[in-house]
């Protein structure tokens, strides 16, 4: 159940590898070493969550995957045209309505007006925002903004979904509700998911696999396969096996802090 990650390829059963980090290192121009020899891969139908202390370089992994930063060592292979990226904040354009915000990425990809309208309507349905298409972001709660942000990424049906601590700013109830929604989307779309969070509970609840990163420079120090069946029910959080899993990860994380 608990194995030390050595950088070798990890055993995966379902789907093709869509995101692959191979000995990725990252040193910032100021000399800060953010990542050290990180290897991991995410297959279609896998949901991999990285937990680790603040500033350990978790988010840097996603930024490398999406080409917002370039790694200084190793290779990261991913089809960059099929990435969905969900930011820490909703990153909506305040001057656009929900509908127009959801259409944005499709618009930047040059889809026709009719096409993106249809796709946006579908995505808005999926995240449960129907009826709010004409609202502006300022009229929405934090949870609803995040839903709109999710819908915006969904429109292009990405094969790889990167989540950079997306629900950290939300209250617990809203966060749990959005966890369920992302899981439903995950099951429906079968994308390869990579999720960054501080919350162990969230990590275990969402994932097929949880990776623990050490403090700077970030290295993967532990990997946990999460055995629970999908669809997962929110009562899972209160089952002994779930608590045990969280306990083990917490233990590994405490080790990673030193």
């Amino acid at each position, binding site marked *: 159940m608990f194995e030390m990650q050595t950088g070798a390829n990890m055993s995966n059963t379902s789907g093709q590898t869509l995101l692959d980090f191979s000995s990725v290192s990252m040193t910032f121009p100021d000399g800060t070493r953010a990542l050290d020899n990180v290897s991991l891969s995410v297959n279609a139908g896998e949901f991999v969550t990285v937990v680790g202390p603040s500033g350990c370089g978790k988010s840097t992994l996603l930024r490398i995957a999406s080409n917002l930063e370039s790694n200084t060592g190793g290779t990261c292979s991913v089809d960059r045209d099929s990435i969905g990226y969900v930011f820490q904040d909703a990153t909506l354009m305040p001057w656009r309505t929900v509908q127009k915000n959801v259409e944005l990425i499709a618009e930047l990809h040059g889809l026709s007006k009719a096409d993106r309208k249809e796709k946006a309507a579908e995505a808005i349905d*999926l995240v*449960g925002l129907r009826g709010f298409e004409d609202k502006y972001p300022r009229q929405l709660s934090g949870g609803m903004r995040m839903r709109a942000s999710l819908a915006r990424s969904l429109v292009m049906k990405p094969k790889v979904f990167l989540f950079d601590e997306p629900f950290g700013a939300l209250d617990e109830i809203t966060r749990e509700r959005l966890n369920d929604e992302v899981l439903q989307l995950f099951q429906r779309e079968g994308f390869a998911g990579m999720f960054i969070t501080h919350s162990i509970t969230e990590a275990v609840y969402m994932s097929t696999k949880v990776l623990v990163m050490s403090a700077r420079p970030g290295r993967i120090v532990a990997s946990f396969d999460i055995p629970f069946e999908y669809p997962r029910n929110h009562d899972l959080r209160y089952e002994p096996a779930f608590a045990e899993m969280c306990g083990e990860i917490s233990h590994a994380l405490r080790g990673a802090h030193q």
Partner: protein
Amino acid sequence: MSTIDTQQSIVDEVIPDQKQRISVSDYSGPAIVFALFIGSWYLLSGVILPPHKRFLLPTPHEVINEGFLVWRTGESRGFQPILMSLWDSAKVAIMGLAITIVVGMVLAVIMSMSRWLERATWPYLVAVQSAPVLALTPLIRALIDGAQKQRVLVVVLIAVFPIVSNTLFGLLSAEKSQHELFTLQGASRWTRLTKLQFPAALPNIFVGLRISAGLAVIGAVVGDFYFRQGGVVGIGAQIDVYRNRLWGAELITAIIMASVLGLVVFLFFGWLSRAAIGKWHITTRGQ
């Protein structure tokens, strides 16, 4: 396929629009200040000024009777010549403002493209902003023919700075993550400008517009002083005539009408701003 069943539970999360309530206090403020203003005017012209100097500042009712209610006496006395001059200046102000907006926004876009250009350009903009127009009049006269064009140039010189600085500030105000969203989609510089930076800049652009619009009116009036030709003269030149002849009532009337022009322009851009961005941009005032 099933959609996520959260419709009911999230309805209450929508933040309702605040209804604009107009109450007595919305009018009482302006009314009280107006009463104080008229009161101090009477005090100044009727009590404080010595009697032999009171012709310099006629009382409010004298201004109304002799300035506003006399249509036309002689060549340039009365309300009609004042309106004609005002219209003449308004045309100059509007033309100058139009040029200012185009020039200012283009400059701001160019400056937003590179830090290098921004740093190279600022000192000259500040210089234009602070150079006294009086000192430039001979040069302007030598370079440009025709009082109309000369006055328009003065308007541009006086009004351009706020448009540039506010537009630039706005163009650079988009959040990093918003930029990254565009980067992730491989957006071109033009797409980034039109779909992200420009809309993000709109609230600042409107602030700049309101300031520049007011300055354009000032610029037109100032330009009237220095550049005039035969026929109908601008309100600034008209004010100068009244000042020289010590026609107090007409002088005050002309000044009030010039202010009214500034106020109209200011209100127009306030309205335009609300119409364009009021739906998504909110201003907050704490309590």
